[in-house]
């Protein structure tokens, strides 16, 4: 899941829910906050390093808003009804149109969150280090014992284990052991 904060500001509940759903399923990104009301959104506009999806009307109504957001290092994407409802002079990071097809929207969103999508796609192969950790854990070694045998820190073992579980979609030690035995990693 994303660590970056994503905020949607739009008066339409359909747009809010639809965008949140698309972000989740296309990019595995969850929306931190959805706001329908401009007044309510004011405190949120003080945030830094946030990805904003904002109704284009709000930017048109308030000239300073865009500058203010960009100034704080935020990314700003507009949600516009059509090309006429945006100001071409605004150097926003991108525009989503209500009339965009599913494929167009997905393409735009994937471009915004490329690394997250990429990680998800290449997540299946274990690295050789992870395989070594898997072997030791499957043989019944504790995290501490595994760390000692590989001369790495306990923290590193735990982080390897997390990645192994995520990549294999197996959560328990007994499940990992079964997986390792079936794959002839241990005898």
């Amino acid at each position: 899941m994303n660590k970056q904060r994503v905020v949607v500001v739009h008066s339409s509940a359909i747009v809010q829910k639809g965008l949140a759903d698309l972000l989740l399923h296309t990019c595995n990104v969850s929306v931190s906050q959805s706001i329908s009301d401009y007044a309510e959104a004011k405190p949120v506009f003080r945030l830094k390093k946030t990805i904003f999806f904002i109704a284009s009307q709000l930017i048109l109504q308030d000239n300073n808003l865009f500058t203010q957001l960009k100034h704080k290092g935020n990314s700003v994407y507009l949600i516009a009804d059509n090309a006429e409802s945006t100001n071409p002079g605004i150097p926003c990071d991108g525009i989503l149109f209500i009339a965009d097809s599913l494929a167009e929207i997905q393409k735009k969103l994937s471009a915004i969150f490329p690394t997250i999508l990429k990680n998800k796609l290449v997540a299946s192969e274990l690295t050789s280090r992870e395989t070594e950790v898997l072997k030791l854990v499957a043989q019944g070694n504790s995290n501490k014992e595994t760390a000692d045998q590989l001369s790495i820190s306990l923290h590193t073992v735990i982080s390897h284990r997390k990645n192994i579980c995520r990549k294999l979609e197996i959560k328990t030690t007994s499940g990992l052991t079964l997986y390792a035995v079936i794959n002839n990693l241990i005898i």
Partner: protein
Amino acid sequence: MITESMKMSDIIGKNILLISVLNRFGIKPGVGEKTLKTISSQNGIELKSFLAILNTYNSKEYFPENDDVDINVLVNFLKRTHVYYLNYTLPRIENLLRQLSAECPENKPLAMIEQYYFDYKKQLTIHIDYEETELFPLIVEIVKKQSKISENADYYSDKIQHEHVNVEDKLSDLKTILIKFLPAEVNENSANELLFEISRFEQELLDHARFEDKILIPKLIILLQTRQ
């Protein structure tokens, strides 16, 4: 949201998975045009708890208030759920696994998966047995206000929640491993049935644990605290 004035046939029609929940209250299909309220009173079921339990199973978003469910009704329901797991679900999964192993007796992974399943079953049975012989009687006793307990409330909360996560994760691992390693020569219908059954059981366990972790245990904690 399921309400008392809805027809039972509509409720079942909309979510067929509720049948096994209804069975635990002694209700079977063949419900005619009767409403939930009528059926509930004919079967001597306490309406408010019945509605809360059905709605919890029916929708992830629904969550009953603490007072919605009578603790005795809930404990009885959970006990019948255990019986269903032990007498129906587990033997069914076991039979399907045996059937698959019989089809490819030389397949080592399948034999190992079977062994994993037996270990899992043993663990689940011990867990259920603990709840039946210690936890539930304790709760019933506390509700009757007759108990003398020395244990700290956190003890129960931690123990039960930890075991639930373990029981759910191990089952989910079984499913993942079957999906990855089922040998190509097994009968696909039995293999599908096995995967459907495990997935359904996975969902059931999640719902079941929601009742225990979110209603039963908090209730126990409140009761314990008021007595200390």
